[in-house]
């Protein structure tokens, strides 16, 4: 038995060491650095909560643009993308296998383009002159009279980011929920019909969702990760960090701005910690909603 234990740890070792090095250590390091002043050249010196105090009291850009943008973006793209994924997954489950597979592939494929390569295409579509596709279309139907510079216009940047992020939000979570709906025990539906369930909607509320809670939670966590990972999209679309008048500035961009442009690593680390806390908060809420215990 002793020897068996040793092999267990041995099998775990490669994964755990990489996990420690590149996931745990960076998180711990972010927390530690957030209490220091660090410019990457001199040794970091301890400053206590100064970074956090500055964040709350001095950083006008953070309070005025970055935080509201992030919260708005996350609230629409996170729950919005999640509900959309679920509705699509549930509807697809009502279809026969072949059309379901084809449609699922179509909905899933945008999430494969997550990479920046796609930002290039959005730039062409939202191009600011009259031969841009969106401009040309809107001008033809008479909605606007002259071309709008979509990606530099502070009124539209965040909106476009949200649309693009929603477009690519049907990822792994969507597939998990589709599999979840398909795997609900059919006898449950039969029993429910006898018990007086009247329509598909009641079925959905009383049978489907309760029996696939674990998948719902997995989908929620994936939606949260997806939302915050696409946070850099504003800089890619507008081509500059900071984005024009900070209109599309999210936490991730703000961290990059302070960390790699101004080299205020301590302050950037404090921003990272705040971002991790926001992500944790979202996950906590979804756990409360879907956890079985």
């Amino acid at each position: 038995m002793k020897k068996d234990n040793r092999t267990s740890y041995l099998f775990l070792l490669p994964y755990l060491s990489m996990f420690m090095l590149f996931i745990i250590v960076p998180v711990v390091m972010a927390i530690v650095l957030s209490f220091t002043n660090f410019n990457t050249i001199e040794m970091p010196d301890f400053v206590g909560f100064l970074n956090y105090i500055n964040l709350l009291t001095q950083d006008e850009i953070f309070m005025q643009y970055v935080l509201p943008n992030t919260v708005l973006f996350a609230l629409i793209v996170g729950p919005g993308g999640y509900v959309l994924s679920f509705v699509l997954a549930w509807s697809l489950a009502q279809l026969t296998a072949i059309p379901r597979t084809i449609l699922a592939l179509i909905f899933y494929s945008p999430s494969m383009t997550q990479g920046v390569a796609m930002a290039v295409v959005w730039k062409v579509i939202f191009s600011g002159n009259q031969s841009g596709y969106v401009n040309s279309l809107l001008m033809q139907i008479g909605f606007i009279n002259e071309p709008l510079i979509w990606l530099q216009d502070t009124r539209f940047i965040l909106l476009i980011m949200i649309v693009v992020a929603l477009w690519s939000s049907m990822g792994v979570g969507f597939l998990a929920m589709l599999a979840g709906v398909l795997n609900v025990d059919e006898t449950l539906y039969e029993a429910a019909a006898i018990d007086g369930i009247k329509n598909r909607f009641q079925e959905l509320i009383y049978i489907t969702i309760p029996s696939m809670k674990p998948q719902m939670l997995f989908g929620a966590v994936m939606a949260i990760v997806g939302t915050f990972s696409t946070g850099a999209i504003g800089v890619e679309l507008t081509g500059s960090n900071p984005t024009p008048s900070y209109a599309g500035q999210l936490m991730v961009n703000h961290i990059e701005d302070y960390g790699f442009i101004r080299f205020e690593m301590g302050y950037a680390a404090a921003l990272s910690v705040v971002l991790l806390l926001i992500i944790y908060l979202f996950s906590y809420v979804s756990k409360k909603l879907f956890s079985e215990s």
Partner: protein
Amino acid sequence: MAFKSSGVNPKRFHRSQLKFYVFLIPFAIFMLLPIVFIFNHAFKPLDELYAFPPRFFVIKPTVENFENLFDLANTSGIPLSRYIFNSLLVTGAVVFLSVFISTLAGYVLSKKQFRGKNAIFEINNAALMFVPIAVMIPRYLTVSILGIEDTYFAHIFPLIAMPVGLFLIKQFIDQIPDTLIEAAVIDGASNFKIYWKIILPLIRPAVATAAILAFQLVWNDLETSTLFTTSENMRTLAFYMSTLAIETNVVVGQGMAAVAALIMFVPNLLLFIILQSKVMNTMSHSGLK
């Protein structure tokens, strides 16, 4: 009369399914538009890229844009083949190593009893919500402290521990009956032999899924090229393609950018189409409690 649902996962077409098609199909077309657009834009000759009003579909397809992209890379000093080589090497290594270490760990987390097992799995579950770019600075510092900056290791190591991969694999191994393993133990099989001969062949769907997720992550990844490398010839295709974004103001650049997007997207798509039934099989065990 009690409600008789035509049911989830129907075997045959029924009129009641029509209402789903009514909104699913238009929505699918809308979702598909940008992707159809890349395919068309990539093959447009110069005069169609310039066309006013702009046209969505290509009329006279050409491979000009592909040639331009290759030429551009060559004139910038580093041939496109170098970026492709880097990407293939890094992607191959990450996919292989990530699947290998996740299956090893998944096997013991699922089938063995030892101290700290539940804690490790719980921590991994918490790490499902890990967003690498949130801690890009400490990750950068870790890489530079390890001294692997600007090497292939800097592309590979930061990405191979994938909590999602381990999670899906472990859940999948959970449904392999213990008796199968006990029988092998009685026959005198070593742990590694059990892993290699019994577990791996039975969890192919989960392996395929973890592999495809790893592939998508690495293939599209910019973090390692932007932050962990300094010399141009160590960078990946994804990074090079993203630099083309700067040139999209030029009309010629648009065509090349579309080609770039196409080159990045197609391998993902093909891989997913080939493996989709395995992915769906794995996803039915993806519940998070």
